[in-house]
């Protein structure tokens, strides 16, 4: 590690924190300052003006906006996301009870999807122009073009309705045998994997094709190096940065996919929680969930950036 790398990494970190702050501000502005009176909405059109005013006071809506903003930001930093407008329980507790479930779902998916996608992307790039490459190409275009709920519905139709291999809805709880785990997670993971593998494989292929068409690869071929050596020794070390980027970007699709998948399979994760929050306009809950997702996304992107910096030979050897 040298000074330049250290400085670059520090810059990335600071940038990530600033961005997170910016995102928090955007979330706050959208949920607070845009037209629409939350108190009125919550109580309905028939509420008396006194009741509305009372609720406004209770929610702190009568304070000047910047004061509310600072207070909110400070609370967020401390990890206090306020209370749900709908049932009054602390948002942190609501999220806490479900975060684990979502992480398990995302984790299993990532474990399955990343190797599959890398294998597909790398082989397609190596056999560029072959029938195999074209099939992968066409397949992934189709996969990125269809909505997640189509994939999920199709999976339910085939595996739950037709074949009856797995239940249509996820029921967490009985996870005693391996089979239980498989039966519970099979469809959600399958759906999510399908969606992000396509994206990731495409980007991996593009990154590797780029490297494989460079002069030093041609040179390696002309030195008599075999295919395996060219890919592993010459190409991959130079593709780490772009591939890390592809993984991070595709995993961010996971965040979006989770929302649909948790809803369709009635899976008790935070994405489902957030969707319910949006339908009931439970703003503290929505804010907290949004910050959580954005934070996760930023973390992924920053990690990819860090990987790219650490993998760059021009920076590593100065």
């Amino acid at each position, binding site marked *: 590690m040298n000074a330049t790398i250290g400085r670059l990494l520090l810059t990335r970190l600071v940038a990530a924190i600033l*961005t997170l702050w*910016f*995102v928090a501000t*955007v*979330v706050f502005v*959208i*949920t*607070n300052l*845009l*037209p*629409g009176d939350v108190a009125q909405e919550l109580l309905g059109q028939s509420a008396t003006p006194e009741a509305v005013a009372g609720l406004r006071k209770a929610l702190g809506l009568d304070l000047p906006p910047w004061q509310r903003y600072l207070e909110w930001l400070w609370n967020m930093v401390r990890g206090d996301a306020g209370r749900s407008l709908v049932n009054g329980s602390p948002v942190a507790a609501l999220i806490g009870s479900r975060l684990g479930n979502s992480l398990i779902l995302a984790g299993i998916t990532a474990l399955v999807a990343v190797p599959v996608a890398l294998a597909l992307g790398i082989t397609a790039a190596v056999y*560029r*122009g072959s*029938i195999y490459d*074209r099939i992968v*190409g066409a397949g992934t*275009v*189709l996969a*990125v*073009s*269809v*909505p*997640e*709920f*189509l994939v999920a*519905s*199709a999976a*339910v*139709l085939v595996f739950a*309705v*037709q074949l009856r291999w797995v239940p*249509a809805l996820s029921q967490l709880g009985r996870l005693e045998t391996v089979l239980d785990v498989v039966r519970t997670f099979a469809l959600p993971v399958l759906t999510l994997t399908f969606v992000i593998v396509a994206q990731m494989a495409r980007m991996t292929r*593009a990154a590797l*094709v780029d490297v494989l*068409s460079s002069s030093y690869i041609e040179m390696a071929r002309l030195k008599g190096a075999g295919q395996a050596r060219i890919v592993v020794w010459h190409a991959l070390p130079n593709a780490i940065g772009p591939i890390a980027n592809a993984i991070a*970007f595709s995993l*961010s699709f996971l*965040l*979006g996919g989770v*929302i*649909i998948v948790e*809803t369709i399979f009635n899976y008790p994760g935070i994405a489902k929680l*957030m*969707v319910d*929050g*949006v*339908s009931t*306009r439970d*703003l503290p809950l*929505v*804010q907290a969930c*949004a910050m959580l*997702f*954005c934070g996760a*996304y*930023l973390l992924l*992107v920053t990690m990819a950036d860090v990987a790219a910096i650490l993998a760059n030979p021009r920076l590593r050897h100065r």
Partner: protein
Amino acid sequence: MNSATFSVHRGPMAILARLSRMIMPAIVLFWLAMAFFGHWVAPYDPAGIQDADLFEGMSRKFWLGTDYFGRDMLSRIIAGARYTVGISLMATSLAVTAGVLLGLAASAIGGFFDTAISRFLDALISIPSKMFGLVLVAALGASIPVLVLTLAVIYLPGCYRINRSVAVNVAALDFVAVARARGESTFYIMIREILPNMVGPVLADFGLRFIYVVLLLSSLSFLGLGVQPPEADWGSLVRENMPGLPYGAPAVIMPAIAIASLTIAVNLTIDSAFGRHAREGIR
């Protein structure tokens, strides 16, 4: 030699490719026509409850079956095209127009203006699109104008980024330097020198953006946070007919297939018009 534009000229793959090159734009045009003139050809009133069972299968009478109310699915999908295609088209046009104008201005003016606007919009990109949509809908509700604006705002940063980079690349070329050295106004340089060289990338970007918008709108509607009843786009149609899924009712599958047919057709049309590389690098 450009790998992207390669295709085989013999064999079954070639025939398939040629066929898709003709059929895909036709599908896009078909859905566009349905969006604008669908009400003239729909066999039934999309809201009218027919003399039929719930979740009927496909039949002579009801080509795509019936929904959970016993309404004709074909007519409802045709009516839904108006919302899905219409809203997406409006939102995409807004996002792309704003993205092109801002990108052009940033590249031609440069300096502080460019930095400020780029930083701001780049930071917005770090909010995942579905999340952005949920927050906006939670705050503003889901009327159609709000949906159009929401979708446009969500995709504006990506659009700006791509158009700015295209514009900056063009602006760095010598013919722009020649025009500057001649003393031409910034406006002239933007409109006459840079813009004409952006047409291809802008069109490709428009198509891809449109796909994203359709997918996001459908997802929101599927979650019940998009187009609200009694109006229904394709995503809403899937949602309201979900109870038919265990029976394998066409009422669930068909609207989803309509979405897929539109997005796939647009995607492949872009491929054949601009080459496969058009998509790479666009987020």
